[in-house]
């Protein structure tokens, strides 16, 4: 059996940043396990720019952004294994992994950082009726084919879902010579970043049809066309609004799902809203010494925030290894997301264990204009941040300081909400 202080599951942006941060926080014995053929995770297929504006104050492509962290990992001489699949993790932190060279092997860890990322919602999960021909791809699968393998998955494309990958792929397919006919979105608003709608759709005259969905896929062997229809407030197709599009490809960008099969297997409590683990201020799950960060915890909009969160997870895991879990006299204060706020990460804060500044991230459930993100402690409003626009596609954050929380005495709960102006 191998032994490490920290084992990080996943060598994508979250795993890389967590590893570097843990090392820089003083832990020597770290291992990163990556199932793919290289480090960097999904960033390797994100060859467009726009990454790193927050972290590096410059616009990098996905692979460039990943390389910054890979370089740090190599400089720090952090160990990693590629082509290595984690099969199982026990609650006492014994990891069973597998690769071609070593076969099945076990690793005992003092702490584990979960950084497995997320997957795309499939056609099946969307229950789109019709045939099941070739030519229906999730946007990410198409992105891999085009950006990493150089293959065109189709010529005439309809995209369902306006998640960021779908928007990015609308532009990519256009640049590679395909005709993107329309992007349809079930909801009355886009799930993607505003900047992507402008740069990937508007700039290429690709129409975005909100409150529309695919009601039929035609073609028995290869997609030959799809039918769109407008949906009502209950998201049911409205008869008479059908429009037919001739196409050979349907790309789906209808949401991302954190990949938590390993987490569930080891008994981690999950948040029904995020589909990620429930974590405390240290990004630690209910299983002591197991931390989570990045898209496995909750789906992020920008990789910069993934890195930032992962740095905190790495630092906290290192602290756990070096100092043990800090005794706390204070209790875990629950964070409650309500009135527009759908969830918060973390879900509890312990004032004794928190750092000077605690970032609380959340998403809203609708589009809000000229409003405030507010925090209430024991019924008293302590933060009131003006927001010109808030949308479900963009992550929000508020920062709570130890100073503030310490000054409030016995706190029952911290409420995060959206308030209209």
């Amino acid at each position, binding site marked *: 059996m191998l032994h490490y202080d920290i084992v990080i599951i996943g060598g994508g942006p979250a795993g890389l940043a967590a590893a570097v941060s843990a090392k820089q926080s003083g832990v020597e014995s770290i291992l990163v396990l990556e*199932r793919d053929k290289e480090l960097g995770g999904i960033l390797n297929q994100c060859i467009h720019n726009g990454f790193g504006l927050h972290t590096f104050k410059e616009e990098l492509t996905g692979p460039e952004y990943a390389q910054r962290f890979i370089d740090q990992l190599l400089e720090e001489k952090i160990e990693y294994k590629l*082509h290595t*699949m984690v*099969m199982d993790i026990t609650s006492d932190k014994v990891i069973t992994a*597998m*690769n*071609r*060279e*070593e*076969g*099945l092997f076990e690793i005992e860890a003092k702490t584990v950082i979960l950084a497995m990322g997320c*997957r*795309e919602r*499939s*056609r*099946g*999960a969307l*229950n789109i*009726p*019709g*045939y*099941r*021909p*070739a*030519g229906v*791809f*999730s946007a*990410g*699968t198409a992105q*891999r*084919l*085009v950006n990493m*393998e*150089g*293959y*065109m*998955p*189709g*010529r005439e494309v309809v995209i369902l879902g306006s998640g960021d990958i779908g928007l990015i792929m609308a532009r990519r397919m256009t640049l*590679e*010579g395909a005709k993107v006919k329309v992007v349809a979105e079930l909801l009355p608003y886009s799930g993607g970043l505003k900047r992507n709608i402008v740069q990937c759709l508007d700039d290429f005259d690709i129409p975005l049809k909100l409150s529309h969905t695919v*009601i*039929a*896929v035609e073609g*028995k*062997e*290869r997609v030959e066309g799809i039918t769109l229809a407008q949906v009502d407030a209950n998201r049911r*197709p409205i008869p008479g609004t059908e429009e037919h599009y001739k196409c*050979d490809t349907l790309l789906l960008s209808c949401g991302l799902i954190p990949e938590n*099969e390993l987490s*569930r297997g080891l008994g981690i409590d999950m948040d029904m809203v995020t589909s990620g683990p429930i974590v405390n201020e240290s990004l630690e799950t209910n299983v002591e010494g197991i931390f989570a960060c990045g898209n496995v915890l909750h789906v992020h909009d920008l990789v910069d925030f993934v890195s930032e969160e992962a740095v905190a997870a790495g630092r906290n895991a290192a602290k756990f290894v070096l100092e043990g879990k800090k005794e706390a006299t204070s209790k875990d204060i629950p964070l409650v997301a309500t009135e527009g706020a759908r969830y918060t990460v973390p879900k509890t804060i312990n004032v004794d264990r928190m750092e000077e500044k605690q970032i609380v991230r959340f998403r809203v459930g609708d589009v809000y204009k000229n409003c405030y993100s507010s925090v209430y402690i024991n019924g008293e409003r302590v933060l009131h941040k003006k927001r010109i626009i808030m949308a479900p596609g963009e992550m929000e954050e508020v920062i709570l300081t130890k100073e503030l929380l310490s000054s409030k005495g016995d706190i029952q709960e911290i409420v995060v909400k959206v308030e209209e102006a």
Partner: protein
Amino acid sequence: MYDVIVIGAGVSGSASARELSRYNLNTLVLERDEDVCCGTSKANSAIAHAGFDAEVGSLMAKLNVEGNLMMDELSKDLDFSFKRIGSLVVCMNERDRGALEDLMARGVANGVQDLRIVERKELEEMEPNISNEAVMALFAPTGGIVCPFDLNLAMAENAVDNGVKFQFDTQVTGFRKENDLWVVETNKGELTAKYIVNAAGVFADTLHNMVSENKMKITPRKGEYCLLDKTTGGFVNHTIFQLPDKMGKGVLVTPTVHGNTLVGPTSLDIEDKEATSTTQDGLDTVIAKSSRTVKNLPMRQVITSFSGLRAHEAGHEFIIGEVADAKNFIDCAGIESPGLTSAPAIGKMVAGIVAELANAELKSDFIGTRVGIIDPKKLTKAEQMALIQEKPAYGNIICRCEMVTEGEIIDAITRPLGAKSLDGVKRRTRSGMGRCQGGFCAPRVMEIISREKNMDIAEVTKSGGNSKLIVGVNKDTI
């Protein structure tokens, strides 16, 4: 020239071919699709029915019960997944007790063993998620679940091991008689045989009507299903049917041999024999009806939906035998549910008919067993280690949802009747059958197919024919 040409490589055709391969007969199976198990055999409830449904005295009843009883041994011999988990027919109203008892009586008359009626209390213990309305159920311990792909493949591969040939992508367009021999006209030229077995599923009537004046009509009866993620494993423990009542015929809820939950089917007669599309209405119906059987089925966990076409003949009976006005032409038609269950018995019956007509003799060197694709998950750790050491590809996970290794995929492609397409690999290994539905593994499986078959990746298809996944390279039209 062949002794026998079997038309259709579905479960009936493959079972017939396997049983025919016991005899000294030169047999060919023709299939219009690119693989075995591409029609009704791949899209059904995956149930080994106990046998209480079919009419007493019918061929359907006889072959159902026989087929069901053959499953244990056959699954061991041919290495396919089968579990005898038992089935329940749930009754929602005390006043339907009589109907449930009638069903039981029919089962007893059909020779189904160990049938009994369980009352609410016991039913709840057996199925904690059973609907609150359920008052009792008919329990058939002999009911089971089977992997339909595996069953079909296992019989076809075993037939190959015993000398049967398969020819794919071959569509029969006509027949003619020449010197007492059947000449089969196809899109790939003409083939000759002494005997024809018509196991063409929903197209069996088309073939039958080419040779007979007594016309047959097979109606495709569409059934739509939803498949739920393995996280729902254990939601039900048995195959649960609803007793048809004034609310109509219900849908079944069942575990699959791989630990998913399957819900369906609907039932709609259609005209188009290839209309295997799902519909909004159908999927809505499945979801609505399932809630009558069980409570709080987590429909958020649906990972895919599909539809299959039952080959329904008006008399709702299997039609197996030599066609009266077409000598040496044997129909194996109207094979709808419980066709999958009955397949082993159907194969025996068909082979028996042909053997008698041909005066064929049993071979002495028949190989009765087949070894399936190794599933490393079923090995001990030590066995798995040894396997990876010998073949490192078994240490490389390709499908992360179903944990399928490269070793299994290579085996699926390179074995007899090997997979040629993504769906072919999927049916054999489950790669792409999990919760991400091939999102991650599809490009990698395409790579492995192109490497193992030494073909351009652009030629790799989803399911043969024109189902190509790649249409060109970047910027090739600019």
